[in-house]
């Protein structure tokens, strides 16, 4: 545990954040002490709902209108907590700046990058437009955006997610800040982009000597960039200290649990004698992009000539960055999208069948989505959601039987069947994903396509869901098509892995072959960006 020194730039003491809601007061942050020294990177780690973002938002005076704060936030010997906005703005956005998770929505789509960068300098900094533009260009160079002269004139939609996040960082750096608060800045990005952004942040910090507060749920990132760590749980700091100490000798059981939550293990192989359940031959999906009147249609090949076969009980992991076509492939296999090629399921050809002809097969092939918030109908009870499939596939069941089956399915995913009359919004993310799994299990499927089922979940919850999926596979001899960008989870769950890039298979093989001896550069790059931290952790653990 380090104490405050003269080098401390920002210190938070006894910070309490309460939210007044219709159902009572929610204590989001309960007396937190955090400080950061100049030139230091401090990580605040915790799962969603631990209050890590709210603590920082409160310090910056950015809380929702029903938030109440108490405590002290000291910057340059001044308590900035609860300052009126005008006074606060002399610090906020100048000396203490923030970057957020969502680079897609943080930029105004109607203005060019240059204008968005220059405007605050003109309005607040009193620079002329010309000087501001020049500074903006300089900033873009600083954050290593390729072709800054061209990018300064582009609109946000012309930039990729990583580039937008770089612009956001450039914006945060405009006034030469002392403290940069980064709230999950890489969560929405691909692993390789994430690695680049982290490198950029580390590099900038070294050059500019500012303090960085890094809010994240990803221990890999912490391990990689932080000097000190605060672990938060339900609004309190349960442990803090040097990064190396925390990782090697975690004192608090919660920290230990977080560290243990990295998915591990290996899937026992399936005997070669197992029957081939699914076979895909030369599957391609093309989207026609509207280019305008009288112009030749532009065709995008989202999935390009992919073949594989799956035995009963096997898991095929499909890995790739966003836009690589892995989700599209999953949907094409289920015949939810028009695709060319041949897909054979249980000896029956399913490609080219219309919806009515597919209906009988839908029972045996199911899909689980990434977002447990979006995949459950908000106005139906959990019981109704789970038993809906039975309405379609076993219409002879009475309402009582359906209810009974829903209860069994809930028990299978370790949820209390008493809760079946509640609505999805009353459940947490992990519980919702369990409900989504129960919805597919109630039909007793053969093949389940899992489209990033754990990506939206916290690590500890993720681990539970992975265990649940493993158990279900063992019990019912299920076959999984596991789509994910998270290599650690894929490694723990799959027999074979397929790496996709821009619709094509870059490399395919058994888990061990791919992870131990990757052949292609792209695979190596992916593994490097994602696994570096985890390998380090394995060494230390």
């Amino acid at each position, binding site marked *: 545990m380090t104490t405050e020194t003269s080098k401390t730039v920002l210190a938070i003491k006894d910070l309490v954040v309460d939210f007044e809601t*219709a159902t009572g007061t929610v204590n989001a942050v309960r007396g937190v002490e955090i400080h950061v020294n100049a030139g230091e990177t401090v990580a605040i780690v915790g799962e969603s709902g631990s209050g890590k973002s709210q603590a920082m938002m409160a310090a910056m005076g950015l809380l929702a209108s029903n938030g109440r704060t108490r405590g002290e936030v000291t910057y340059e010997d001044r308590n900035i907590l609860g300052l009126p906005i005008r006074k606060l703005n002399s610090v906020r956005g100048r000396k203490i700046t923030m970057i957020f998770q969502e680079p897609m929505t943080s930029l105004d789509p109607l203005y060019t990058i240059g204008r968005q960068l220059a405007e605050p300098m003109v309005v607040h900094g009193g620079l002329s437009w010309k000087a501001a533009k020049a500074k903006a260009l300089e900033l873009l160079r600083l954050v290593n955006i390729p072709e800054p002269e061209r990018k300064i004139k582009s609109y946000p939609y012309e930039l990729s997610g990583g580039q937008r996040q770089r612009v956001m960082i450039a914006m945060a750096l405009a006034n030469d800040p002392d403290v940069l608060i980064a709230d999950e800045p890489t969560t929405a990005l691909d692993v390789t982009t994430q690695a680049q952004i982290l490198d950029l942040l580390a590099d900038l910090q070294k050059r500019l000597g500012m303090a960085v507060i890094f809010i994240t749920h990803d221990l890999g990132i912490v391990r990689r960039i932080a000097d000190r760590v605060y672990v938060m749980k339900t609004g309190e700091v349960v442990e803090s200290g040097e990064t190396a100490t925390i990782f090697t000798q975690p004192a608090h059981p919660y920290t230990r649990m977080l560290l243990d939550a990295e998915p591990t293990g290996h899937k026992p192989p399936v005997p070669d004698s197992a029957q081939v359940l699914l076979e895909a031959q030369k599957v391609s999906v093309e989207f026609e992009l509207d280019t305008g009147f009288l112009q030749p249609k532009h065709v995008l090949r989202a999935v390009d000539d992919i073949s594989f076969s799956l035995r009963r009980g096997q898991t095929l992991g499909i890995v790739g960055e966003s836009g690589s076509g892995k989700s599209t492939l999953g949907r094409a296999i289920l015949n939810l999208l028009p695709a060319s090629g041949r897909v054979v399921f249980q000896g029956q050809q399913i490609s080219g069948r219309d919806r009515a002809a597919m209906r009988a097969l839908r029972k045996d092939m199911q899909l689980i989505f990434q977002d447990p918030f*979006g995949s459950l109908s908000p106005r139906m009870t959990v019981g109704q959601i789970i038993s809906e499939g039975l309405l379609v596939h076993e219409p002879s069941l009475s309402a009582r039987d359906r209810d009974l089956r829903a209860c069994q399915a809930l028990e299978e995913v370790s949820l209390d069947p008493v809760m079946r009359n*509640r609505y999805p919004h009353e459940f*947490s*993310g992990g519980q919702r994903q369990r409900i*989504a799994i129960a919805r597919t299990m109630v039909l007793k499927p053969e093949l389940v396509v899992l489209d990033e089922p754990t990506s939206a979940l916290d690590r500890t919850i993720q681990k539970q869901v992975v265990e649940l999926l493993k158990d279900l596979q063992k019990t019912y001899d299920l076959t999984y098509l596991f789509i994910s960008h998270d290599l650690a989870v894929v490694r723990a769950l799959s027999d074979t892995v397929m790496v996709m890039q821009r619709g094509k298979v870059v490399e395919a093989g058994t888990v061990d072959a791919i992870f131990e001896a990757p052949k292609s550069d792209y695979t190596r790059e992916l593994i490097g960006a994602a696994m570096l931290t985890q390998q380090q952790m394995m060494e230390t653990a």
Partner: protein
Amino acid sequence: MTLTLTNNEAPAKGRSLWDDARDRLLANRAAVASMIVLVLIALLSVFGPILSSHNFDTVYRDYVKVPASLSAYPRADQVEPAFMSAARRARVTVDSYAREGDTVVAEISSSREIDPRSVRYIDRSDLFRNAELTGMSEDKKSATLRADINFMHFYFGTDANGRDMMTRTFIAGRVSLTIGLLATVVAISIGVLYGATSGYLGGRVDQMMMRAVDILYSLPFIFFVIMLVVFFGRNFILMFIAVGAVEWLDMARIVRGQTLSIKRQEYVQAAEAMGVSDRGIVRRHIIPNTLGPVVVYMTLLVPKVILLESFLSFLGLGIQEPMTSWGVLISEGARNLQGAAWMLIFPSIFLTSTLFALNFIGDGLRDALDPKDR
């Protein structure tokens, strides 16, 4: 690890989003006050005409355009002239006239024999009742006539035909509210089904269905109503059809827009992947999730329909006499504004407070159903 988990003792019966919305609505003071006002107006419209001492179509010829008043009619100075004119009509001469409290006593005489039935002339006046002849002289040429003064209250005054405005305002409320409600229900049911189907099916079907809507949009509304009236004559049901048939177009567009975004939601894709039929998806997933904006739109549509009906009635295409609606009353009131302002004021108060209340409720509902809070 989220905060929803902390409350494990909660009852097994879940709170739906509707429950939450209702709580938020009830916390909104303007909306609750508006609901009370609306309920009061509705109750007055339903029970007012029954409880009122006047019929909405009874004509009081002696009380044409009398101002609204809390005290009873006839006024003291009206009694004698009215009695005299009634006596003249009965062809008797009034020799002496005296008012004793609530009765009038007069000595009458005539050059011919007085027919006992001539008291009817007195009764026929709205001011008197129970007229009777007493003390008929031997030659039957003179007698004493007694008549009770018939006191009546016109709290809202009377109209140009001498009908009680209060009862008429209440009965007009029945008509206006019924039209507002029924036409809205018609518009909403057609609009929601049409819009959800069009939006969900998408593609060419969507194009065709929405172009049909566009074509209907381009028909002038008044032309449409006049055609209907020409073909089917004026009647009450026609109003629903005419108004409903036009207003569903907006609804269909709103619901289609909602559906387009809902159908990309993962729960719809999940249902598709499960093999649920189109009908099931529209019914179970799409429509329930569009209902939020629909309910809000409904509260705004009711006043719109009431105003439309007023407009049609104003043009003479709506409700037929002696039935009436707020729109008819207001248009009559507007014609008699000089000298008989009460004919405009009272129906206007009712119409505007209804519209205000509905708009406030719509506002409250929009806040209550706002998904931003979720």
